[in-house]
């Protein structure tokens, strides 16, 4: 269920795969990526509404993470185009996309272990003068900017309850704290679109709630969020719109409460024939069992 009572900007948008949104921040068209003979991603069209939380779900091996990597430039598609904020960004490298305001996190957190927490945060800030080689020798040019960045970083750390870890190596944080740090660090980039790859994976339930609150608070700041998630409870709780992938394709779209009832989605998660054997070996085993059962009465009978 949408959390806020205000009418959704997606009211009236039909619940079908690839449907156009009234104010899309990201539009993907004809994106395909094959690994050898396996078509990992074959997305006809997806558009992401600005300012909302969109969940990307699907069973294991549906191509969600590959799709994520294609969107963020970490992998290049065989074909297809990406339009971000009205600009064609197909083939852009990850750092250019990040500079434009599309920032991602990773399923396995990438905290920079041998930098301390505050340095991790400060790294995220855009347009730092001191990142130029020659300017780096002249602190005069960037000391002021550095102070501003540090103040902003400390604000965010306080919001994410990491302020007490400010000067610790990021490598000493717990798994959940690393997720928090990674999210906070992504915000240092001042993004318009945040892509979270399984933000709740490996986080203890107590922390999950606070992570969810953070994600919601991003939406209220006007940041668009796309996230990959397995946990349907989480998806129902925070997402405004759900895109379902299976076997590389988008099979359904719609609000979470509608998606939960969609027969295609249930099939994708549970298998089209719920009692069908999973592998050839299992099938043979089942046949053998049936044969034994059929033979036994025959030998016993006089």
């Amino acid at each position, binding site marked *: 269920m949408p959390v806020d009572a205000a009418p959704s900007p997606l009211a009236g948008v039909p619940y079908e795969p690839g449907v156009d949104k009234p104010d899309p921040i990201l539009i993907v068209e004809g994106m395909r990526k094959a690994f050898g003979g396996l078509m990992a991603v074959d997305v006809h069209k997806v558009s992401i509404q600005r300012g909302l939380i969109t969940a990307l779900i699907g069973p294991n091996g549906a191509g969600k993470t590959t799709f994520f990597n294609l969107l963020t430039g970490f992998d290049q598609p065989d074909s297809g185009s990406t339009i971000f904020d009205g600009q064609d960004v197909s083939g852009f490298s990850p750092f250019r996309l990040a500079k434009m305001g599309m920032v991602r996190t990773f399923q396995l957190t990438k905290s920079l272990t041998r930098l301390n927490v505050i340095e991790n945060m400060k790294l995220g800030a855009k347009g730092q003068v001191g990142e130029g080689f020659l300017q780096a*020798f002249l602190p005069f040019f960037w000391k002021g900017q550095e102070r501003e960045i540090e103040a902003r970083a400390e604000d965010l750390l306080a919001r994410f309850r990491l302020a007490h870890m400010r000067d610790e190596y990021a490598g000493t944080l717990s798994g959940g704290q690393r997720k928090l740090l990674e999210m906070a660090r992504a915000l*240092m980039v001042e993004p318009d679109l945040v892509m979270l790859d399984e933000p709740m994976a490996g986080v203890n339930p107590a922390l999950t709630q606070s992570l969810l609150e953070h994600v919601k608070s991003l939406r209220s700041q006007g940041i668009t969020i796309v996230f990959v998630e397995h946990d349907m409870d989480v998806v129902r709780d925070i997402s405004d719109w759900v895109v379902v992938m299976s076997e590389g394709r988008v099979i359904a779209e719609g609000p979470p409460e509608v998606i939960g009832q969609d027969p295609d989605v249930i099939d994708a998660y549970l298998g089209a024939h719920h009692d069908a054997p999973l592998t050839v070996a299992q099938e043979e085993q089942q046949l053998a069992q049936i044969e034994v059962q059929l033979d036994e009465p025959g030998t016993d009978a006089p």
Partner: protein
Amino acid sequence: MNWNSIFQQAISQAFGLNAVVFAMATIGLNVHFGYTGLLNFGHIGFVAMGGYGVGMAITTFGLNPYLGLLVGIIYALLFALILGVPTLRLRGDYLAIVTIAASEVFRIVVRSTTLAPLTGGNTGITAFAAPFYELNPFTERLYSFGPFFYTGPNLFMITIGWPLVILVTLGIWQLMRSPWGRVVKAIREDEDAARALGKNAYWYKLQSLMLGGAIGGLAGILLAIGNSTVQPDYFVPVQTFFLWAALILGGVGRIWSPIVGSMLFWALLTITDGVMRGLQSTGAIPSWLMDGPQVGQVRFMLVGLGLALLMVYRPQGIFGSRQEMMLDAR
């Protein structure tokens, strides 16, 4: 055994020309590996570039000697570009393979007879350093003060070399505490994370490779002028690993470790040499076990043994922090 003389030699070596050259070269290696995480297994190639740059500029091309210094640095920068542009987009291991191969290819090419008119072939380049020694105030043959004793030309290079090493160290120190250093260290920790935060990892790695390479080239210039010669067979791959030894001894990614590591490396080399020769002369090491010339080889075996022990008992080196090192193991 004359402990006094062994101590004198060790301390003179610790502050001598070899240690200066090693310290400078190792600073470059520290920029590469210690701060950026670039696996450079051919650092001696950059040193060779500096040496051959200055040597060829003066003898072969007849340039102004001070312009020759610049040519040495330019050679090293070009070497970094040629190695870096194709490999830095790939995984780190590729740079390791390419650097070790390229440094050896360069040595074999410059010592070839075909190139002898340009590079002096296997005898290398000599007679280019004279213009620099015109400035040498230490005109006597031998200088001795306290435990130190140096030849005049050596003392000249040392008095120029150490302040230069300190200057470069301070420059790197400033660089690594700037936002530039933060990006480079982030790339060392996780390149993809840096890219996801809008940093052009490839460009920073290339900058780092060029910076460390230029510092290696500077070491080569000091070496060439200090010895008044460039010999191709000095630049064998094993020298790269001596530089690594000095870096690891001091502690990877620490600002003062190249200097202290190089000084200790040369002091230890001199002490083991002196002790073994002493033991030979008293008959404690019988001649069937080891003769005079073999001492020079055995001391390197001892260096290897020492490094292995260091890796086991103090992997972080002298300045490193064990806590920081152990973070990676999580």
